[in-house]
């Protein structure tokens, strides 16, 4: 008990003496582990290279400027591909994620014991694999190109969208649904009148947010041959064409800024 009586007065402390020692010991342990890990990493680092890094970076930066602006002619098509991969992938993901989310939400699932675990498994397996790894597998399955990228982005996004959406479904105000049930509405009508209006803002927000993330993710998919601007990045790095690399990085930066701007405005308009 944090309240003790000392000489007829009640003394309150945040923690008991034991809890206080426990907390202190916890911090001690944390700091000790941190110092130990620091030493391990330090031992395995070749400090000569690290010391050299500023010089190397300056050297690389020097070779990167000025960006080779004329290379832009080649980049327009891959940039367009990148945006398309993100957009189409997000659309595929949403179409699949919506039913999965309704199956996963405790209050709408047709069966808590059979359908819900399957839906949750779909969500977890989609989320646990990075889109770059999905792309790597899909390139070997269906060959290199934009299609592999679209599917990779789609597969990765299903879990993200479905998870956030099913959490939104579980957090709805049940009394509004009860009111619709009480009118004698069928299950499909309960869904479209009682639940869908309540999750629309979440749905719109999630979709736009995921599209925004996918623009960024699709810029690297080309590294494994799944189309988009990453393909050019990979080629430029391996031929040591640093002025092209710097231009590509600038283009990626610009694309991401534009997508941030667009998604912020869409979200603002909907909610």
């Amino acid at each position, binding site marked *: 008990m944090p309240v003790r009586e000392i000489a007829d007065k009640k003394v309150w402390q945040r923690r008991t003496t034991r809890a206080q020692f426990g907390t202190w010991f916890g911090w001690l342990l944390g700091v000790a582990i941190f110092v130990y890990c620091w030493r391990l990493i330090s031992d395995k680092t070749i400090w000569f290279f690290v010391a050299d890094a500023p010089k190397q970076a300056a050297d690389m930066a020097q070779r990167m400027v000025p960006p080779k602006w004329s290379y832009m002619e080649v980049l327009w098509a891959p940039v367009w591909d990148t945006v398309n991969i993100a957009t189409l992938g997000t659309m595929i993901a949403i179409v699949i994620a919506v039913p999965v989310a309704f199956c996963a939400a405790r209050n709408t699932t047709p069966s808590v014991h059979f359908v819900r675990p399957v839906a949750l498994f779909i969500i977890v397996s989609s989320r646990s694999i990075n889109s770059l790894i999905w792309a790597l597998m899909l390139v070997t399955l269906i060959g290199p190109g934009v299609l592999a990228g679209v599917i990779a982005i789609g597969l990765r996004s299903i879990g993200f969208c479905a998870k956030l959406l099913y959490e939104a479904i579980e957090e709805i105000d049940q009394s*509004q649904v009860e009111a619709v049930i*009480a009118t004698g509405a069928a299950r499909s009508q309960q869904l479209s009148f009682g639940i869908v209006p309540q999750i629309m803002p979440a749905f719109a927000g999630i979709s736009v947010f995921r599209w925004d993330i996918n623009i960024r993710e699709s810029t690297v998919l080309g590294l494994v041959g799944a189309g988009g601007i990453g393909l050019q990045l990979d080629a430029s790095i391996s031929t040591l064409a640093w002025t092209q690399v710097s231009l590509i990085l600038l283009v990626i930066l610009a694309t991401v800024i534009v997508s941030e701007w667009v998604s912020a405005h869409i979200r603002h308009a909907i909610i």
Partner: protein
Amino acid sequence: MLRIENLEKQYKTGDHALKNVNLVVPKGQVMALIGPSGAGKSTLIRCVNRLVEPTSGRIFLGDLELAHLGSTELRRARTRMGMIFQEYALVERLSVMENVLSGRLGYVGFWRSFFRKFPQSDIDEAFNLLERVGLEHMADKRADELSGGQRQRVGICRALIQNPDLLLVDEPTASLDPKTSRQIMRLICELCDERQLAAIINIHDVLLAQMFARRIVGLQLGSIVYDGPPENLNPEVLTQIYGEEDWEATIEKVKEEDEELDTAALLNIAKVSPPS
């Protein structure tokens, strides 16, 4: 109209919410169900339209036994019972009109309701009801833009457009100010009168119950302990329902207000004015 026989409800948590409840509500009667929180008032009316599944007992709406209906028949039966909720329970992001029309969901098919293609007769009726409660100019507003009293009026319209035989009203005034509470109660009672509806009104405000209902049923720990006219509510009865307390003031006040109300009726100000 409504007949409840030996109704029992025991929740999974073990709470024995209703104990052998027997109750008959004839056509056109407005009945107030009073009792302390946790007495089982909500459970009782939710058992009637089976938002809560009764443990045992029988419930008749007319000749139809409700407690054991399959899902399709239950939906059809629910269209005959309008429900009005404590926190209005409007679908906040839908318009007033959509909320009112949602009372017709039991009558129209899924695709018609999905594309909001309700029959013109339903739309006419929705406008009539909105006009009756003084909200015809609000039809296009979103439900979350309305004040509490206005929302509850929309809730009333949604229940009435079902063309029900019975109204189940769950604490209609619990989140409203005293004046709006009376307006809402008066409106519900008038509409029940006009349409010869039976109604069960859950209400924890004894004063309001006495003012508006012709029959009071007191529920205490899941059992009916009083059933009679509002005049017979004396300190002993109230003590039995709610526990020991000084009840004289409550009863005195009602008598004064009854007189006020009579004067009000003479002046014919019963028509509800929209809240400011």
